[in-house]
């Protein structure tokens, strides 16, 4: 237990710094945008109505959706401007959080400025203040406590919402939460929650202190609290100034196998002398674009996913041909190098409980179609929208009683507990065998092949040291080894971290080579 906490805490400083950098930048940008707008709005009621309406509208968009929306927007913008804009990581997270921080700052600033006593404004005019002097000497100081309260609200929201930026590949304390959720590592989840909540509470207290000090005109307290915030920021920003050197960014989708393979690749690259960072939890749709845009340097994808999602093909092709065609397509269209297949497949596998398989004589998908009207279907978050599901439905007359989406972590327990009767499992998942689930055969070959393969970003394609460090992984991982490694991370008891599982997997590869 203490070991798990220690492991979780070692990641906190780096992620906390990234979290602070992101939230602070977003807050600063929002303030820079809002304050001039608020001054304009405070003088023109019509402008106030439009601007506040817009900010309120943004607030109704869920933070996660807002983050997701910036990805295509930035991609489009990048294409329009001839590239160079990163659609992943810091930029989309910054923009989404900035938009999210607008409303409280704007609303309070307008309220504060319009709420300045008319007598004070009349006196300012009567004394011969220019508009700028009136703003600086009278309106701004009198509105300051209200404006500060808005900034405080925005700061707390931003720090909370920044945990979601993990999904667009920006490091934050959310990395701990998302990774912990995927691998059922609650220590990791709690660490991420406590760290981000703690940060929000401390910032709230300090900004609250400043707000009160301004209201009560106690300059020493206001400056003292500002200094504490400044020191905290300086500590968080220090690593950013140090320069990153040649850091390799390894991408991973949001499940254990991806985390393990990313660590396996990472350990190989570290041995070759590279500095390595991980972008975990990227969505399938996002991750290929990320490698094509050099936002990540390498990741593992599956042939069927590229075939259907990226190439939009539905024709059945033998596995080897498919891998070869993908390599040709990705190189010519995006400059992405398909380094090779890892040697195992992770396809969609329809799994049922052994009791049902025996009593209802389920062996194939045809058998499943027969009983499907009585069956509840459990899937991961994306399967129902994927073309593979359409292909399966086209090939077999399956019509389920109901369909429910789960985080993959919860899909297997849902099947064993009887909440659902069949799941779209992953064939390399260790929990199929561990639970004794029966995988139904796809006799008609409706589901395409899902060979795991290494995809390398254009800027690393010519890097021989890089390629040579990774090359030994090609064809070296058996599905049995992958399942075992996955199970080490996914099982309920005696869980291992993805890094530990990757180390174990690496040892199996060496054993293989030695024989």
């Amino acid at each position: 237990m203490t070991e798990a906490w220690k492991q979780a805490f070692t990641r906190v400083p780096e992620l906390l710094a990234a979290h602070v950098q992101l939230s602070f930048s977003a807050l600063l940008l929002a303030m820079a945008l809002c304050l001039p707008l608020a001054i304009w709005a405070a003088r023109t009621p019509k402008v106030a109505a439009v601007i506040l309406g817009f900010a309120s509208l943004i607030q109704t968009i869920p933070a996660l959706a807002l983050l997701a929306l910036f990805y295509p927007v930035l991609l489009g913008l990048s294409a329009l401007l001839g590239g160079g804009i990163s659609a992943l990581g810091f930029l989309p997270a910054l923009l989404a959080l900035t938009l999210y921080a607008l409303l409280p700052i704007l609303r309070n600033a307008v309220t504060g400025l319009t709420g300045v006593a008319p007598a004070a404004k009349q006196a300012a005019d009567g004394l011969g203040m220019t508009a700028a002097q009136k703003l600086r000497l009278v309106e701004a100081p009198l509105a300051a406590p209200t404006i500060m309260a808005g900034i405080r609200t925005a700061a707390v929201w931003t720090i909370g919402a920044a945990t979601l930026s993990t999904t667009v590949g920006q490091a934050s304390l959310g990395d701990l939460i998302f990774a912990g959720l995927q691998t059922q590592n609650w220590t990791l989840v709690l660490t991420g929650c406590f760290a981000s909540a703690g940060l929000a509470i401390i910032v709230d207290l300090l900004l609250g202190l400043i707000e009160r000090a301004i209201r009560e005109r106690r300059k020493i307290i206001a400056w003292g609290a500002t200094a504490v915030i400044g020191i905290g920021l300086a500590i968080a920003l220090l690593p950013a100034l140090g320069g990153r050197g040649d850091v390799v960014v390894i991408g991973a989708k949001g499940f254990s196998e991806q985390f393990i393979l990313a660590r396996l690749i990472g350990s190989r690259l570290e041995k070759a002398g590279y500095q390595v960072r991980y972008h975990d939890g990227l969505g399938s749709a996002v991750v290929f674009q990320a490698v094509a845009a050099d936002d990540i340097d390498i990741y593992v994808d599956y042939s069927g996913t590229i075939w259907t999602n990226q190439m939009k093909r539905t024709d059945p092709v033998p596995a080897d041909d498919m891998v070869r065609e993908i390599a040709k397509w990705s190189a010519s269209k995006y400059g992405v190098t398909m380094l090779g297949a890892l040697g195992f497949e992770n396809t969609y596998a329809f799994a049922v409980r052994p009791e049902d398989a025996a009593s209802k004589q389920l062996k194939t998908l045809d058998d499943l179609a027969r009983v499907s009207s009585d069956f509840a279907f459990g899937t991961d978050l994306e399967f129902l929208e994927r073309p593979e599901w359409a292909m399966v439905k086209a090939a077999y007359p399956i019509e389920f009683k109901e369909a429910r989406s789960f985080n993959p972590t919860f899909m297997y327990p849902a099947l064993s507990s009887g909440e659902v009767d069949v799941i779209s499992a992953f064939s390399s998942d260790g929990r199929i065998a561990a639970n004794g689930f029966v995988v139904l055969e796809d006799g008609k070959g409706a589901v395409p092949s899902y060979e795991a393969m290494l995809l390398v970003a254009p800027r690393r394609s010519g890097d021989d040291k890089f390629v040579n460090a990774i090359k030994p992984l090609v064809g070296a991982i058996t599905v049995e080894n992958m399942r075992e490694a996955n199970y080490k991370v996914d099982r309920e008891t005696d869980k291992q971290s993805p890094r530990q599982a990757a180390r174990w997997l690496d040892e199996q590869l060496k054993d293989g080579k030695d024989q």
Partner: protein
Amino acid sequence: MAMNSTPSASGPAISLKSISRHYGAITAVDNVSLEIAAGGFVALVGLSGSGKSTLLKMINRLVDPSAGEVLIADENVEAFDPHVLRRRIGYVFQNIGLFPHMTIARNIAIGLELAGQKNGDRDGRQERVAELLELVELPQEMANRMPHQLSGGQQQRVGVARALATRPGLMLMDEPFGALDPVTRDSLAGQYKALHEKLGLTTIIVTHDMAEALYLADRILVMEDGQIKADATPAELLSGGVGDEAEALVAIPRAQAAHLIALGQTDGRKST
């Protein structure tokens, strides 16, 4: 402009030439022409909505006239940027408008601060604040207090001191003592009248209180419906024959005075 006069010099003369102010279909001030002599103490009296406050605000351009022009010491006010013009005119109004986040000293010296006296002149500014506190009969230790720590009467004394800080020749006062209790009001009005004489100011005061106007001013203008209906000295007003509007306003303090005298006589008879 002669408005930046020394304390002993006389304030400027004011000339209004056919000025009007319309708010949509409503006419607040209707083609008023008026000459005010240098050093005069003029009261604008009338009921609410008679246009007296609007007329006053057109002099320091807090309101711009729809037609006509305003001359101060023979110079058209349009020739100056509004803020430049206003820095040379003292302005005191009913709601006082002290800046709640500034000390009394900074409130009083704000006009000097605006005029560009930098921190190097801080000693000069402090001296001036002390001088002004004395002038409006406030104790020196008020300088470091905040406005909310002062009573209403003290605050308006600060308001007057603030208006006088830049040594304006012209003072515009819009119901300056309207929100104060009668005792404070009476003593403050009396003290201001003395200041007016001592500094040789030109003062225009707006009030709805005829008794106050009769006591303070050497010339009273009665306004109704945006026009000046009567223009007379206090003595002329009291002796009557200057129009019905004026008569109606003078009737009130006169009746009150008569009532008080009658009461006094009754009491006198009782006590003997």
